[in-house]
């Protein structure tokens, strides 16, 4: 071969090959191996914080629901917590439980959605369809409780807008039993499969030390053995009253070296944990109202006078979600509102975990931190001499699938 060897640049995105939101990666390749990674986010910056600083807190609450389609209720919850601290609103005990139940159902649907995406990236499309089919049940329950499949709109400052009453429990229990019955099957399909293990073990390793230094959050850091879960560290809503532990990869005889396989383990066993949490909530829920102040105008009056600063944190399905709010008591809109979603923290780990891996592993490694990104067009491969070739999304996906087939044969 007379061609000049390495390194050459492989740009991917801003329309992303594997996931659903624009981001631009630049890989420096040496043959099949990634030597250096760089990426530029910001292709879908919507200026949500800027918009929020021109609205009143109740309007922002519903804007929060729309920050993310998968973990929207967590954004609304964390914003409500921050404003409740500033305006000194006492949330009724029952509302804490309603918040916890809806948050855990959201975690179940998010983790199963992720499991489907991961299966698709590995070339197991049957498993992908199966995962998304079983996800429907959780979305149906959420619709039963809130009236919506996405953008639930159930949170309110000082509680929730709807109650979960005892006559709704049988439907919730039915969904929980459905998932409980499927858990063993999911463990078997994802964790006992030889090919998935071959593709995922020792792929995209993030050590515990680096996970801490790079400030990663959620299942990504827990898979690296870092015990960190806001629900346990700084309990909010009803989590302080419940009995559960942080899920680490050692629940499934893994050494916990922070690879893609460990991230699958953590997510699947967190579904089990969520089922337990919802059951405990249904058992312990106290009676009472679910909203501190039902008169909307009165609530807005109180918020207008509120002054101070606060931050709140919750454990969204993908990891820690954090909002900082400052209100000055002179105007309706907050003076400052900062949103930190979980991918914001986890994206730094990409540089670490993609280095030294192969092109075919890019989709599953990028997907393994469950980034909040959207869909898909093509990849341009630009040679050093400036000759551009086009590598489509299908091509990149096929590379990943071919690697799976190779390992299977």
């Amino acid at each position, binding site marked *: 071969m007379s061609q000049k060897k390495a390194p050459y640049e492989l740009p991917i995105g801003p329309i992303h090959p594997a996931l659903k939101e624009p981001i631009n990666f630049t890989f420096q390749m040496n043959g099949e191996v990634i030597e250096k990674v760089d990426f530029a986010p910001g292709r879908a910056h919507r200026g949500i914080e800027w918009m929020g600083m021109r609205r009143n807190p109740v309007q922002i609450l519903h804007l929060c629901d729309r920050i993310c389609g998968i973990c929207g209720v967590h954004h609304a919850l964390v914003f409500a917590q921050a404003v409740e601290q500033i305006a000194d609103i006492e949330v009724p005990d029952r509302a804490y439980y309603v918040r916890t139940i809806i948050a855990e159902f959201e975690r179940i649907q998010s983790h199963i959605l992720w499991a489907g995406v991961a299966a698709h990236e590995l070339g197991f499309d049957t498993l992908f369809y199966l995962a998304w089919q079983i996800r429907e049940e959780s979305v149906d329950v959420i619709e039963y409780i809130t009236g919506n499949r996405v953008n639930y709109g159930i949170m309110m400052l000082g*509680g929730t807008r709807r109650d979960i009453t005892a006559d709704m429990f049988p439907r919730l229990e039915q969904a929980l039993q459905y998932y409980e019955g499927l858990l063993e099957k999911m463990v078997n399909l994802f964790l006992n499969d030889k090919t998935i293990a071959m593709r995922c073990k020792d792929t995209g390793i993030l050590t515990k030390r680096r996970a801490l*230094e790079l400030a990663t959050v959620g299942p990504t850091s827990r898979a690296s053995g870092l015990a960190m879960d806001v629900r*346990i560290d700084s309990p*909010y809503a*009803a989590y302080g009253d419940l009995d559960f532990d942080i899920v680490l990869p050692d629940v499934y005889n893994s050494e916990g070296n922070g690879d893609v396989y460990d991230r699958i383990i953590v997510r699947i066993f967190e579904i089990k944990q969520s089922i337990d949490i919802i059951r405990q909530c249904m058992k312990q829920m106290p009676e009472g109202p679910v909203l501190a102040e039902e008169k909307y105008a009165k609530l807005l009056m109180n918020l207008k006078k509120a002054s101070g600063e606060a*931050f709140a944190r919750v454990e969204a399905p993908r990891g820690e979600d954090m909002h900082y709010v400052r209100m000055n008591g002179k105007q309706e809109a907050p003076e400052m509102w900062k949103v930190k979603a979980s991918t914001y923290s986890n*994206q730094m780990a990409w540089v670490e975990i993609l280095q030294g891996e192969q092109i075919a592993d890019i989709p599953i490694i990028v997907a393994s931190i469950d980034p909040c990104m959207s869909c898909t067009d093509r990849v341009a491969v630009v040679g050093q001499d400036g000759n551009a070739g086009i590598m489509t999304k299908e091509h990149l996906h096929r590379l990943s699938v071919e690697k799976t087939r190779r390992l299977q044969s």
Partner: protein
Amino acid sequence: MRATMTPQELADRFIRKFGSRVSNIQVKERREGVKKLPQKTVWMTVSREDLNDAVAELISIDYPHLGVIAASDNGDMIDLLYHLQVFFGGKHEEICVVFTVQVPKSDPHVPTISGLIPGAVYSEREKQDMIGVTVDGIPDSRRIFLPDDFPEEIYPWRKDEKGIPPSMVKELWKVDRPTDRPVPPVAEPEPVEKKEPEPAKEAPSGGAAE
């Protein structure tokens, strides 16, 4: 099991070490849930010269997790708020520490903490983009969330003349239907006869609180 301390002990340790160089120390506890378990936070203001020392002191206690760096335009000053957490992993033991650093708008510089916490780089880049604080010594000073062709010297989170001018704001809800297009070939709906409204069915839960 790691040794932990109370928020007050942590605050006292900073007072002993830094004396009057840390100010405005507030120890707050917010109680949530039926059991009213506390969420412990310590807020303190440090000068930008002492920021790295303060973070190093926190690291000597326990390696912190950096949540985010928030920023707020405060008139003549810009507040940078470093949200850090220590003692996570145990049940209800975590303490959140917030370092507030105030920098004057006439000289908006702050040192980087990425030497101590490498994960801070992205948050620091965002602050350069959004509020126009220059982070000295940052290993990567490119823009992160704003596009490359975004005008220089305009910072979306500023509330002064460097903020977004009204000419850049597109109020999409004010946009009317384009007038240069033909009227869509949709027939006007037939006027429907008004029926007597049916009595609303009882909601199964009766719990809607709107």
